């Protein structure tokens, strides 16, 4: 494979993207896929808000509204936020630890395609007119009686996408465990790598319960199982537990990588090493662990009994402590630093007050007896949008601006970036601050409309207007991306000028083998250390220039995922259509054969020759 730039036909480019196992490209694919679903979920959110604009509104029907909230929640969490974060992990984390690739490039690609096909499967429900409508939580009693194939789309689509995520998680874990450059000890890893590690570990332990839950739901709805149907001895509470055993860790899977991105940003744009690094690491791990011990706080009103409620309540509150440690460490990172307010930093600065507000309302919800009042009201909606949008989405948008040059080699326009921020930030608070009071005033969530005369009208109006502001912000962002890509002004290794970690010491975007020579890491913020000691390149090689082993691209991941996608339809129509069962078997066989091809044909990769690397080094003038 030659790196000499040459014009390639569309077909060849497409084939390259379909078969790529390069973590940087897969990162971009995740970003594109996740970005697409973010817009879809955002449009669904806008429809929700427009429906709630006035009392007794009939923009959409009750049934469609329930489909909207379900798809909005599901899309945003599984198909937008998580994939985009995984995209950043893919694109950045290997660079941060000085690796040439991830541990399992093939699995990485498979993970992406499973996510993509799962997401497409889920969203095809719109075209079938049978859309999931039991909420993103799909509580069993309602999910069981939901008519049509809506909930089946949910169960099977998430099953496929979830499998992909699990693979991604294992892949990142092994990458971090085994592929760190010499000298990159655990306690020298950048915080984004650490949060990737903990979030991946959480994926590893949280997704199997989801797999089981969805499996039970699928079998209950389509194959005669009786897990939740109480007339057959089943129990709906089992679903709630299984869902939240997954669901609560899931929200920390969403927030931790964002924490990682913010840690990088605060440190870069304050020109200061992260304050209390080891405490930050410890807090991350602790949040990860505690995250598994609090799931029942979503079930305080289920009637689990006072002892269970009290235990889970106190455990929930405990999470405030490590999270607080993080907040204060970020503040102290800025304190005494040299703060430059760029777009990424602006998002980070917006994040602190927003997330703290969302976090403390979380603790209020964690107060079980108070949650009896607040549960399933707009207060909860306000809480989780404050943490999810104010934490995760702000983190994504911050990361997008921060890492755009590293991923695409060009800087997003700063002016437009700030315009996006202010529209989104103001719109956000307009939308969701008032919802806390809507909750206090007795407005339940998931209502498709509300009667006049309950005192909720103007607040809902304000909320909808705020959402429009957010949409403007996102539109500006899209415009920004298009304009920047068209102009395509190339940037150097470290366009922000204050990069501290390894990814900023190599080209933007990096060559396909990342590092010509594996770097030697001499401490936390190794590039900063090198530069302070006068090594302008920021890198000290740990090995001579030599041949580099690289994996081959493969089309098999795409095919395997396609097989599962086909099997999904077969499973869904098994009971009512004669073609259902054959298609199910066909799809599974397809996947199996693709997989067998992978294991029967040895794929040992190839070598990048030393000459080529030397040539690149001379031409790029990059690493010396």
């Amino acid at each position, binding site marked *: 494979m030659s790196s000499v730039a040459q014009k390639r036909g569309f077909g060849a480019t497409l084939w390259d993207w379909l078969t790529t196992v390069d973590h940087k490209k897969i990162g971009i694919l995740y970003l594109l896929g996740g970005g697409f679903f973010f817009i879809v979920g955002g449009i669904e959110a806008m429809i929700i808000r427009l429906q709630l604009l006035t009392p007794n509104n009939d923009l959409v029907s009750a049934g469609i509204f329930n489909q909207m909230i379900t798809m909005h929640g599901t899309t945003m969490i599984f198909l937008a936020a998580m994939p985009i974060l995984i995209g950043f992990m893919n694109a950045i984390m290997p660079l941060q630890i000085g690796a040439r690739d991830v541990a399992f490039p093939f699995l990485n690609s498979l993970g992406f395609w499973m996510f993509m096909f799962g997401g497409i499967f889920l969203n095809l429900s719109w075209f079938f007119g049978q859309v999931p409508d039991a909420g993103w939580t799909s509580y069993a009693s309602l999910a069981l009686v939901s008519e049509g194939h809506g909930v089946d789309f949910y169960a099977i689509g998430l099953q496929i996408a979830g499998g992909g995520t699990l693979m991604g998680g294992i*892949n990142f*874990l092994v990458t971090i465990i*085994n592929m760190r450059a010499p000298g990159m000890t655990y306690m020298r890893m950048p915080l984004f790598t650490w949060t990737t590690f903990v979030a991946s570990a959480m994926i590893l332990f949280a997704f199997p319960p989801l797999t089981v839950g969805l499996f039970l739901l699928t079998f209950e709805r389509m194959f*005669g199982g009786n897990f939740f149907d109480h007339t057959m001895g*089943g*129990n709906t509470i089992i679903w709630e537990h299984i869902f939240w055993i997954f669901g609560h860790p899931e929200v920390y899977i969403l927030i931790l990588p964002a924490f990682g991105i913010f840690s990088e940003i605060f440190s870069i744009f304050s020109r200061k090493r992260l304050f209390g690094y080891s405490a930050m690491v410890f807090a991350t791990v602790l949040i990860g662990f505690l995250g598994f011990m609090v799931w029942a706080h979503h079930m305080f009103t289920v009637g689990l009994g006072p002892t269970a409620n009290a235990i889970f309540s106190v455990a929930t509150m405990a999470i405030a402590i490590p999270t607080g440690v993080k907040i204060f460490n970020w503040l102290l990172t800025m304190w005494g630093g040299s703060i430059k307010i760029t777009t990424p930093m602006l998002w980070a600065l917006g994040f602190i007050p927003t997330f703290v507000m969302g976090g403390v309302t979380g603790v209020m919800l964690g107060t079980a007896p108070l949650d009896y009042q607040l549960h399933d009201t707009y207060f909860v909606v306000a809480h989780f949008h404050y943490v999810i949008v104010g934490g995760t989405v702000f983190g994504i948008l911050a990361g997008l601006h921060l890492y755009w040059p590293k991923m695409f080699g060009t800087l997003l326009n700063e002016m437009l970036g700030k315009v996006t921020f202010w529209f989104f930030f103001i719109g956000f608070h307009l939308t969701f601050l008032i919802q806390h009071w809507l909750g206090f005033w007795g407005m339940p969530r998931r209502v498709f409309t509300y009667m006049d005369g309950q005192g909720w009208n103007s607040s809902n109006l304000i909320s909808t207007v705020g959402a429009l502001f957010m949409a403007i912000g996102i539109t500006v962002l899209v415009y920004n991306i298009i304009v920047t890509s068209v102009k395509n002004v190339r940037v150097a290794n470290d366009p922000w000028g204050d990069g501290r970690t390894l990814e900023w010491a190599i080209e933007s975007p990096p060559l396909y083998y990342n590092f010509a020579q594996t770097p030697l890491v001499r401490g936390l913020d190794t590039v900063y250390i090198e530069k302070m000691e006068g090594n302008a390149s920021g890198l000290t090689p740990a090995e001579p220039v030599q041949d580099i082993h690289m994996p081959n691209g493969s089309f098999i991941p795409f095919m395997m995922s396609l097989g599962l996608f086909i099997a999904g339809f077969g499973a869904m129509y098994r009971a009512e259509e004669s073609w259902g069962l054959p298609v199910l078997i066909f799809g599974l066989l397809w996947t199996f054969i693709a997989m067998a091809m992978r294991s029967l044909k040895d794929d040992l990769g190839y070598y990048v020759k030393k000459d080529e690397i030397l040539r690149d080094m001379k031409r790029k003038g990059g690493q010396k």
Partner: protein
Amino acid sequence: MDLNKKFTPETWPDHPERATLEAKNKFVGFWLFLGGETILFATLFATYLALKNKGPSGFEFTTQGLFELPLVFVMTLLLLTSSLTSVYAMYHLRNYDFKKMQLWLVITAFLGLGFLALEMYEFVHYVKLGFTYDNSAFSSAFYTLVGTHGFHVAVGLVWITLLIYRNSKRGLNLYNATKFYTFSLYWHFIDVVWVFIFTVVYLMGVIG
């Protein structure tokens, strides 16, 4: 990596399953996967425990009445023994004795097959009694838990068959050593799960 690189017992590394970076990745990755499997089975166990003996009104099956311990005991012995035979296979893997390793793996596979056959017999027997999958929460949870384990056994059998077949002419190298090794990890893990199924589902079920 060179597949044709020939080793002798003297040059064969002590830990062939993690002698290269790729191998180490697979090795660690597979252990992590088993960590995830642990909680997968835990969720199934939990569901089973919550639903055991539960059925529609008038439901007559109970763990005490249903299970046939002697059969399950034989199954347990088969699977336990297959665990030992796969340890033998790994012993020969480390000794660079390909023939013997293959032999022990084949024995392992046959024991696994025997287990699976008995399990299928058991299921068919229960179904004949009227204890069908869709007959109650208890039956659904039971078949799902034990069936998921059985499915894992079946996957293991297909896996090892393919491995043996694919490598039958090639002998050991550092590329396939990891594959054999991870298979044996998988197989032991299945056995671990079975120990719990035997204890929690069957033995404790019979006690009630």
